């Protein structure tokens, strides 16, 4: 029968008890009746529950247990030579038994070896486990103890490594000895070693990782978790095409972790340092190549989500680059900093978006990006929306997303997210610099995108697709067309108030009825089917009963490509394969 190693430091546990008690009292003292704080208060209660129901009972049990009095007399608490023997035996017998003092003993063994011997010994250990079919289990506490000792030893040697030779040797050896990365990832402060190891471990053929199942993946995940502390390092990692390909294709890596690294690299690094948008576009260009080559089946969910969430930063420079369909080039031109990047052809970029849209959270994030961008462009035009400048960027990009969408459910998810972005006035989030000087931080933008995505996915799951002609067109072009219609009518109110000679002919009663239609549409924000139907009703009312407003709407819709957004309304066949 195997036993689970346990160990306690009596003074430490007593101190922990005091601090836990203080933390509980501190949580109790935090109060708010503001409705906007309701979620935060719920989380505070949950946290208090964890401390009161799990931490305190365990701490009290340990304090009253005799186990603590046996701590000093543990059979493996040996003298120096005994520890060395125990540690040597540990390595040779693959951790069949261990006690609380073993990490110290193992550390003593490690410290006696020179650099080459250390790496050789670790390689033999990993090899023997790979060959024997008893893989290293990083969640096993015996291995955790060993890895902790190894981490401390590597920290010491890296600190003394003035010429960098040990770091280079570690990086070379890392893909064959995943224990190295497992030790360095979570234990060290983020430094050059973490980045180099992550890049080395990701830039391998898949079979190398398969030699060390579980442990290789855990090692990479540990390194990625550390790298998240530096958005700039995340972007550097994504800029390595081999590492990028691994992150976009390694299905079993933790999706949340990968999406976080991609978000921090593609969005936060650029928000922190706007000049790095050029590097961000280089990553998007590399992803476009992958989507049109080896990864034409789509990206991993983590990569898809990370890229889709970052789109809100890039969309104001990307959308104007989308011009002609087919083989027309998508040439992104940026100002401050000045740059030009050829992302690929229109069809190439359609495939990039298609590779992203295979994940539900990514679909929601893309919906939010286009909704936010539409909101941003219309808001910038203000009362002059009928002058149309910039609307074609929205319409062409909406067409591109429509071309990339492959399933009706994806369209519904994007439609709901698009509406949510409009309702929450997320146009302010577009870009990296324009709004952010006095606006929300990167972490706030990320939080908002993710919480809105989650809500949109929940709503989309409850949408009941109707059969035949009763189901309105919920493709992104059609949804953006409706968004523009509503936004233009809203802006017309402002234009009328500022003295537009045609709009000023509209009576107060007519405006009141238009407002009621707009309110009806807003009330259906969570029901894309009903929302589309109510938008149609408002359009009909305006056309029949408010001619000056209908004329204003027509003028605004004369922007290039706007009417093409509604092509599928009349031609759509619900049974058509998509």
């Amino acid at each position, binding site marked *: 029968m195997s036993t689970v190693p346990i160990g306690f430091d009596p003074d430490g546990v007593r101190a*922990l008890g005091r601090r836990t008690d203080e933390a509980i009292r501190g949580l109790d003292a935090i109060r708010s009746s503001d409705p*906007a704080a309701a979620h*935060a208060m719920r*989380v*505070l209660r949950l946290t208090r529950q964890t401390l009161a129901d799990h931490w305190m009972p365990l701490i009290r049990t340990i304090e009253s247990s005799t186990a603590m009095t046996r701590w000093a007399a543990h059979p493996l608490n040996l003298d120096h030579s005994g520890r060395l023997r125990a540690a040597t035996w540990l390595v040779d017998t693959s951790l069949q038994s261990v006690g609380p003092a073993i990490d110290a003993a193992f550390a003593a063994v490690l410290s006696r070896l020179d650099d080459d011997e250390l790496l050789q010994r670790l390689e033999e250990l990993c090899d023997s486990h790979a060959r024997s079919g008893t893989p290293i289990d990083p969640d096993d506490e015996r291995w955790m*103890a060993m890895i902790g000792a190894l981490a401390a030893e590597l920290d010491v040697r890296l600190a003394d490594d003035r010429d960098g030779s040990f770091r280079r040797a570690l990086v070379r050896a890392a893909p064959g000895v995943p224990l190295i990365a497992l030790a360095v990832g979570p234990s060290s402060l983020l430094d050059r070693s973490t980045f180099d190891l992550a890049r080395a471990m990701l830039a391998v053929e898949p079979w190398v990782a398969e030699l060390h199942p579980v442990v290789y993946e855990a090692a990479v995940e540990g390194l990625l978790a550390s790298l998240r502390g530096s958005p700039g390092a995340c972007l550097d990692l994504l800029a390595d095409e081999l590492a990028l390909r691994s992150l976009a294709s390694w299905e079993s890596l933790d999706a949340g972790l990968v999406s976080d690294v991609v978000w921090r690299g593609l969005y936060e690094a650029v928000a922190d340092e706007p000049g790095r948008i050029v590097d961000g576009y280089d990553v998007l260009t590399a992803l476009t190549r992958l989507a049109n080559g080896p990864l034409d089946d789509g990206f991993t969910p983590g990569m898809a989500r990370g890229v889709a969430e970052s789109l809100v930063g890039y969309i104001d420079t990307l959308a104007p680059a989308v011009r002609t369909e087919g083989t027309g080039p998508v040439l992104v031109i940026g100002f401050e900093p000045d740059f030009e990047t050829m992302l690929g052809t229109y069809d190439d970029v359609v495939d990039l978006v298609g590779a992203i849209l295979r994940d539900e959270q990514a679909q929601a994030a893309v919906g939010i990006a286009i909704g936010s961008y539409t909101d941003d462009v219309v808001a910038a035009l203000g009362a002059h929306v009928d002058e149309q400048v910039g609307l074609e960027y929205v319409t062409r990009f909406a067409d591109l997303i429509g071309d990339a969408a492959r399933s009706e459910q994806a369209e519904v998810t994007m439609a709901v997210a698009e509406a949510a972005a409009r309702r929450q006035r997320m146009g302010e989030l577009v870009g990296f610099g324009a709004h952010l000087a006095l606006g929300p931080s990167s972490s706030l933008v990320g939080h908002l995108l993710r919480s809105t995505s989650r809500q949109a996915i929940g709503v989309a799951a409850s949408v009941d697709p109707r059969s035949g002609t009763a189901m309105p067109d919920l493709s992104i072009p059609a949804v953006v067309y409706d968004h523009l219609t509503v936004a233009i009518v809203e802006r017309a109110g402002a234009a009328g108030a500022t003295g537009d000679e045609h709009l000023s002919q509209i009576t107060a009663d007519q405006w009141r009825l238009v407002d009621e239609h707009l309110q009806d549409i807003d009330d259906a924000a969570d029901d894309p089917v009903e929302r589309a139907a109510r938008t149609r009703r408002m359009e009909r009312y305006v056309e029949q009963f408010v001619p000056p407003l209908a004329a204003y709407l027509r003028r605004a819709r004369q922007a290039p490509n706007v009417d093409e957004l509604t092509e599928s309304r009349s031609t759509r066949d619900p049974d058509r394969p998509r």
Partner: protein
Amino acid sequence: MSYSQAGHLRRRAQHLVELAAEIERSAVFELESAADHGTWRGRRPLLCVNLLATNQRQLHDAIDGLRWRAYLLEQQAQQLDAAALDLRSA
């Protein structure tokens, strides 16, 4: 009328910002440093530490959420101010 509404929104925004800072200062974020392997080890301690880590992540999200709501309230207050100014000048 809108000046007092704007003031109310600003007070709420201020309260949310202060609440976020109060949560951020909570001792709950310092517990894990006293709960490492040097203090205790085993499956139940590991479970406790993992549960707390999950709660800490949720708290960080909630803190972000409070600041975002405060930002939106502040924006709304500014819009009310601007509307009131327009009304007075008209």
